[in-house]
């Protein structure tokens, strides 16, 4: 049997307020196979965003192991994690996080600056990513000239432009109206089906979760 793309083994995470320990995740274990589209759901404070942060390597667990694409990221230094993220992770957040002074093209080009690519290669990749998300005609637009749904599509283009191993989305439709949210979910679903992208998405929205292959619920830091 093929090894899962993501292996979460006994992962726990606690935060500290002064000397008070606040456990957020307790002994979580599960696998995510390659090509999966997983929705993480649960009430506020259940630890789903924390779990996503741990899988993406932007935070580190207090205990346990996290093996992603064959590498145990729980044991990596900050520098190693930064390099690893640039190669394996595409992130999409609720508020898009686009740089307002850059055009859609430049925002999508940003992660490619960490690669040794020629300008022509970068252009080709950016154009491909923006065409996939349906914004091939909006490349020179600044974020302020785009709708919320279009901004999120630019953010998705930016997340996929490096062809990451794993696409992670935290409430990607949380700031969008119903129509735009539907478009974003359709796009994510297409990325999963047509391009075989493994996607982990945190959401509150049951309609968004319907597009996923599987749903895992978290409650009080444990898998329900």
């Amino acid at each position, binding site marked *: 049997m093929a090894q899962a793309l993501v292996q979460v083994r006994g992962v726990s995470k606690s935060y500290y307020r002064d000397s008070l320990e606040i456990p957020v995740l307790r002994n979580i274990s599960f696998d995510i196979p390659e090509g999966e589209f997983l929705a993480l759901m649960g009430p506020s404070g259940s630890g789903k965003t924390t779990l996503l942060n741990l899988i993406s390597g*932007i935070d580190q667990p207090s205990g346990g192991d996290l093996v992603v694409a064959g590498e145990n990221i729980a044991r990596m230094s900050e520098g190693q994690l930064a390099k690893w993220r640039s190669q394996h992770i595409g992130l999409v*957040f609720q508020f898009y*996080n686009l*740089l307002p*002074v*850059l055009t859609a093209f430049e925002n999508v080009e*940003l*992660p490619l*600056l960490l690669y040794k690519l020629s300008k022509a290669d970068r252009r080709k990749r950016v154009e491909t990513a923006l065409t996939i998300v349906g914004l091939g005609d909006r490349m020179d637009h600044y974020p302020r000239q785009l709708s919320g749904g279009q901004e999120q599509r630019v953010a998705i283009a930016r997340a996929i432009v490096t062809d990451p191993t794993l696409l992670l989305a935290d409430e990607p439709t949380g700031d969008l109206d119903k129509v735009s949210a539907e478009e974003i979910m359709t796009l994510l679903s297409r990325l999963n089906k047509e391009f075989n992208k493994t996607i982990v998405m945190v959401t509150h929205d049951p309609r968004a979760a319907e597009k996923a292959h599987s749903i895992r619920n978290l409650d009080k830091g444990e898998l329900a």
Partner: protein
Amino acid sequence: MLMNLIYRNSFRHKLRTILTVVGLAVAVMAFGLIRTVVDAWHAGVEAAAPDRLITRSSISITFTLPLSYKEQIEKIDGIKAVTYANWFGGTYVDASNFFAQFAVEKGNYFKVFPEFIISPEVMDAFNSNIKAVIVGQKLADRFGWKVGDRVTLIGTIFPGNWDFDVVGIYKGKDQTIDESTWFMRWEYIDETMKEQMPGRAGEVGWYGLQLADPSKAAEVSAAVDARFKNSSAETLTETEKAFQMSFVAMSGAILVLLTVMSWLIIGVILMVLVNTMAMTARERTSEYAFMKSMGFQGYHLWGMITGEAIVISLTGGLLGLALLAAIVNVLKAGLSAWFPVFKIQPLTWILVVALAIIIGLIASAFPVIKAMRMRIVDGLRVVD
């Protein structure tokens, strides 16, 4: 692309950046202006020749020495030439029209002080007319004098109305040479004093000594002063630089105060930029966090934040220099009586540019450290 991002970020909050840049420019202009004034004060020192000594009364420059010392000084080993001069101290029309007036030995003075460019024809005219005067180009421009004009000064140290004939206009051999000085014949004063105040005849203000070997300055100075020790007019001989420096030292406290002020201004510039960069970095916390989440590392953020601070500080610095150049140009004519060499020194240009970069580095240090230490998850929680 990252350079583009730095540039665009620098002008993201146009009003704030413009106000910061204008603040920096005004402060840089003030810093440069103070430095230019201090440099102007030292211009005489900078222009001093290394192969010249000045011999004056050991009591004070206001006390005179006998003309008879000239022959005795000439006999001392190591001296190539000797000349002498006096301060005249007259006024032209109005006491506010101040300029330096020296009564100098005909023929010899301009051989010992060759930095004043005078044609042989003018020199002949000067030597043949006891009322002759040679004025600097700036002084001639200031009062509209031309060769052939008759100019009258009112004597203060040497009373009476003194008529002069302008026989020539000199230029300095380079920009450090004062072109606003008036050179008249020493004999004119002496002949007049012989008639009106015989007790004041045969007196000179100081001697200018040209050395055969500049490295022997200390020995020759000691020999000159030893020659006149225990006489009724003891001498103090020093290098021309030290002599000029003694005038600057009279205003030492003011110069120190001005220098301190100029550096306080740099402190103000720093605080202005620190404030701007701190606000900027705070507003961009989530952006920095997101860039880190993509894989950008501490040194990338260092480059972005510091680059932005340097763009702002350099823009302010260069604008300040442009303002400084304009204001120095405007003030130059008005201040020529007090500061004959009033110009921005190359060191000031270099210092302002270097300081702009250093200030940019310092001002961005705190935001950089904060951004580098920030945990990504904490930064992403910050909503603009």
